């Protein structure tokens, strides 16, 4: 039995939905409202690894009782464990490149894009709710690494100066991705792979969040790449799972920025 605990198809949640559609895998969707903190309810599947959620928030795949968390490694798991075409390059060096991208994108886009999305959408949405109840819910979140991500939505972390500094941190990863795509059609070489699924799930919202940084003039290769991936049936199927019609407006706190170095 394959069950995917997922929320609106954006960022971390979008990745396995695309990969499962690429594999044409049948699965049961367990939809939850991440913005309403339903992932902290007692009925949510949890174990030692998934309670830590290395990315702080994200989807959970339950395969015959085993809980698979952490979105990039979930993509690799889907590629390896389910029938259908592999989504990993077969050449060991290209596989290395896909994994190195997964690590880079996780640390960079995984920590930057959620801040920009939460500042624009999640924090204002939460501000409409009953604050004392929300504070009680957040205070109960364990571990503290995850609680901090939610506290940031309420405590004024997202000042304009802070958001601008985070926006500036996008320049390095954007420029590296643009350069890579200027050389080859896909991140790990000649074939579409989990590195591209991982990148797409974070990049596709940037024309909305940072139009000055991602646009046809500044980043023609990225814009073309988004169009190529966005046209895939798997991506259309993944986006159709949205319950709100606007997955691009739904964000959760992401990977913690490097604490030093």
């Amino acid at each position, binding site marked *: 039995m394959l069950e995917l605990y997922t929320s609106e198809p954006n960022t971390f949640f979008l990745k396995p939905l695309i990969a499962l559609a690429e594999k044409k895998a049948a699965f049961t969707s367990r939809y939850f409202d991440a913005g309403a903190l339903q992932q902290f309810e007692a009925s949510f599947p949890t174990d*030692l*690894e998934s309670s*830590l959620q*290395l990315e702080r928030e994200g989807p959970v795949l339950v*395969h015959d009782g*085993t809980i*698979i*968390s*952490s979105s990039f*490694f*979930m993509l*690799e*798991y889907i590629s*390896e*464990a389910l029938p259908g075409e592999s989504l990993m390059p077969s050449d*060991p*060096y290209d*596989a*290395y490149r896909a*994994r*190195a991208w*997964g*690590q*880079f994108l*996780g*640390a960079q886009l995984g920590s930057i894009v959620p801040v920009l999305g939460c500042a624009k959408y999640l924090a204002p949405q939460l501000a409409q709710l009953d604050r004392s109840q929300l504070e009680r819910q957040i205070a109960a979140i364990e*571990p503290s*690494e995850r609680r901090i991500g939610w506290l940031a939505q309420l405590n004024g972390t997202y000042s304009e100066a802070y958001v601008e500094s985070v926006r500036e941190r996008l320049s*390095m990863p954007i420029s590296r991705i643009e350069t890579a795509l200027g050389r080859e059609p896909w991140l790990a070489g000649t074939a579409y792979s989990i590195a591209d699924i991982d990148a797409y799930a974070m990049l596709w919202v940037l024309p909305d969040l940072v139009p000055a940084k991602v646009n046809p003039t500044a980043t023609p290769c990225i814009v073309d790449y988004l169009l190529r991936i966005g046209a895939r049936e798997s991506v259309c199927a993944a986006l159709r799972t949205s319950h709100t019609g606007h997955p691009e407006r739904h964000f959760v706190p992401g*990977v913690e920025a*490097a*604490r*030093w*170095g």
Partner: protein
Amino acid sequence: MPVILYHWEPNANSGKPMLTLAEKGVAYESRYLDLLQFDQHKPSYLAVNPDGTIPAMVHGSRVLTESTPMMEYIDDEFSGPPLKPKDARSRWRMRWWMRFFDSHFAPSLSMIGWSIFVGPAARQRPQEELRAAIDRIPLESRRIAWRKAVFNEFSADELAESKRRVLSSTIILERHLSRSSWIAGDSYSLGDINGFNLGYALPLSQPEHCNDTKTPHIMEWLRRIYERPAARETWAKGRTPMAARIKILERGPGA
């Protein structure tokens, strides 16, 4: 095709490919870089890895600079005993734990390590020389890290949070190893190589948290890895007292 490995001590990121290559029985040309002399930011090395981070591995025309994916490449590319479990669930677990070590446990442990070892060692040199050396570091994030370590700019809050995380991560690792003899399950894997490079000196650096009474499973796991010929061979390449800390894992009478 020869393998050339640019590395520092058998420790943390440098030790990961060193131990993996030794386990696979792959001979490599060793290029030792002295981290404290900023060898990794010199032009000759920046020609290999423009980011100036270590380790880096060159295999023919292929250049690899990320240590954890590098370990998977070594296992995929070379014959020798497999270092990844056969089933996909265990491979997922191995990767999850490697990311936990790399992105959660290691940064906290290394902040403490740099504040007491790398920083004071680097401060033996003149300030102007240090500033110039740091200004040559290509990645901004690494410049910030080096400035903090070299000029002792870690705040009390930052260090306290790192200490808290080292303790909580040690407890989590002990829980995991009490249900599983190796990181990925029943067999020794890259996950153990990764964790060993992070944790071999924990009983020395964190004696109050990591010892035979509080973390018997971690202690036994570290000793089992230390007893492997590949680990002996790899740590024998160490040149500093840092690598020599591994002696703490010698079994005493009754251990």
